[in-house]
């Protein structure tokens, strides 16, 4: 940590966070309930509708259960505390703890992403090694690549007839094209010298693939995987929302449907944290296979 005139980035991060939370708190503060000027009948009406509750000291206070507008940071922290304390509790078919929801989302994401990566790398290498085939198939890849993975969802649901597998396939669709395109590109633009050396050494086809082609194209393939990773992560949340499959994406939708905005903010934070953890894990793995020329 350098402590010269510019200050440390950590300090600035913390400072920004404090400013943000403080501002959020102040903007969402609610004045306490004032019964002045209200008739007994109006007060009864407010109480009946759950707007206010009788305070212990007598008089009325706003019902803390009922949010008005955007909840403050303290309400979100309280929501998070409750949710995290029951992270691994299953209260019924439709109410699984947040820990399980994260697990469902991560496994759905991992299944779709891994399957897509394997398929894309295999076909990418085949296309990259055969220039004519690559040029023949490329127009199709270019058309299929920009289609939003969610646009496939109704068709997938109709043909697969199973929402669980449909969600995984939506992730698959999001992840397969970037990896396929970049792998084919990476393999086809391998330095000619590498292949010449391999030919001179008379390596078998299999050895050539493992010793020369894949390592040579690895930086490009990893770049493709990184793009695929991002788009798969983006796809998994709306797929859960639309299909009603339990997961963190569905959590945010259910909280919205119930107008529990603190719950929505909590769900967004969970999606963010899950994304960061998955992303750093991916970067560690990517570091193992890339190299500096």
């Amino acid at each position: 940590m350098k402590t010269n005139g510019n200050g440390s980035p950590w300090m600035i991060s913390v400072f920004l966070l404090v400013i943000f939370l403080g501002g959020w708190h102040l903007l969402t503060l609610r004045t306490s309930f004032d019964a002045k000027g209200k008739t007994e009948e109006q007060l009864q009406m407010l109480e009946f509708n759950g707007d206010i509750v009788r305070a212990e000291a007598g008089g009325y206070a706003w019902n803390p259960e009922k949010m008005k507008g955007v909840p403050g940071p303290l309400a979100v922290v309280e929501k998070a505390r409750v949710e995290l304390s029951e992270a691994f509790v299953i209260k019924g078919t439709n109410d699984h703890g947040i820990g399980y929801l994260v697990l469902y989302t991560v496994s759905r994401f991992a299944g779709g992403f891994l399957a897509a990566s394997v398929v894309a790398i295999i076909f990418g290498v085949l296309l990259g090694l055969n220039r004519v085939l690559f040029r023949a198939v490329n127009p199709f890849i270019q058309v299929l690549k920009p289609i939003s993975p969610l646009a496939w969802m109704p068709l997938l649901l109709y043909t697969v007839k199973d929402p669980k597998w449909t969600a995984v396939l939506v992730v698959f669709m999001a992840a397969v094209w970037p990896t396929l395109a970049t792998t084919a590109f990476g393999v086809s633009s391998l330095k000619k010298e590498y292949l010449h050396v391999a030919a001179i050494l008379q390596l078998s086809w299999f050895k050539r693939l493992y010793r020369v082609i894949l390592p040579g194209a690895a930086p490009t393939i990893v770049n493709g995987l990184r793009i695929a990773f991002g788009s798969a992560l983006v796809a998994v949340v709306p797929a859960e929302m639309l299909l009603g499959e339990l997961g963190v994406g569905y959590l945010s939708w259910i909280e919205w449907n119930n107008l529990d905005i603190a719950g929505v903010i909590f769900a967004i934070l969970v999606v963010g944290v899950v994304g960061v953890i998955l992303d750093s894990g991916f970067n560690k793995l990517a570091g193992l296979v890339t190299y500096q020329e």
Partner: protein
Amino acid sequence: MSDGDGNSSRTMAVSPRADAEKAESSDEHLERTIERAVAGAVIRAADPSRRRFLTAMGAAALTALVAELLPLKEFAAFAADPVGKPEKTDLNIAFIPITCATPIIMAEPLGFYRKHGLNAKVKRAAGWAMVRDWAINKDVDAAHMLSPMPLAITLGAGSVPVPFYMPAVENVNGQAITLHNKHKGVTTAADMKGFRFCVPFDYSMHNYLLRYFLAEGGVHPDKDVQIRVVPPPEMVANLKAGNVDGYLAPDPFNQRAVYENAGFIFKLSKEIWDKHPCCGFAISKEFASQYPNTFLALFRSIVDATNYASNPAHRKEIAEAIAPTNYLNQPVTVLEQVLTGTYADGLGAIKKDPGRIDFDPYPWHSMAIWIMTQMKRWGHLKGEVNYSAVAEQVYRAADCDRIAKELGYPTHQGVMAKHTIMGREFDATQPDAYVRSFKIHSMA
């Protein structure tokens, strides 16, 4: 061994065959008896020349042929006494988180499924299209559906045609027209020209009642207003955001709008048609014939739970049972206001109407016929419709009453009731004339 009573001496030496007969469950025996009876009846009814042909076919082949047309296994299940053991006990039942589903939902926490030998779990869906897809794709064994949905699915309107049953209605009444707070001055349908409305599904009582109400007031629902399909849970959020002017929605979302100070209750649906059907319990014909005893046990649980929910004394207990996150995920006060009928209308008054929502399982065929006349009226059904045949196939009125009688609940006379909708009487025996009587419609 019911036929072995006369000659008890023979039972001393038990033959292997008699052993096998004894081992044969009473279920199978009953099934065979029914098969024989049906085959016999068909042969007797045929004229002499055909009779020879049918006899030559043999009872088994004939039964198979008849079974194509008549669900014999279901008949056997209904005739079985004591109740046959369910073939499948672990079940998933889809529901939408609304008070209409009360009997289906509460049957889990209050133990009605368990009482009838089932381990059923209810699975929450986020919209009616999702329920339809789950039901058709067999992700769930049975489902809470809007009362027009089993008719629409059976007829292939808005989906591939799949024969469905609606063994029981869940709730009658229980909907309302809710308008945004900015429309507090609105008094008639004519004031609503240019509004943007939400309904939960195309094939819903909500849609048909809203259209009926608007059209009676001279407003064409396809020309003078916009009607959009929005899943019930999203309606309040949309109303709050000002995306829509109002909706005809299932509760608790009308009361929830008042609770959120976003809207007011303009009209309860019972003011349009008192005792109209709303939601129902639906199951595919395939499931019912594949697992007849399970179907029957489910049917019993539902009739039992629905009648239990009908008793006003049970409503508070029910509100607490279905409020948690796993079911409706709503504030208890909102559910209580809906279920007890003592509610804030959003205009500053507390109203009392115990009939705001009620529960009655009996699926009158006349209800199905009314729904189909409206499907026809608004272009959801094209061509000739055999109203009473479809109603009889989908709405299992006779079976429902048989179970009600067995469980000691009230039964009904006939399958056609007189319905009065906004002062106009509906004669279910004249559906075509009824459809033609409307000036405002969207028929080609």
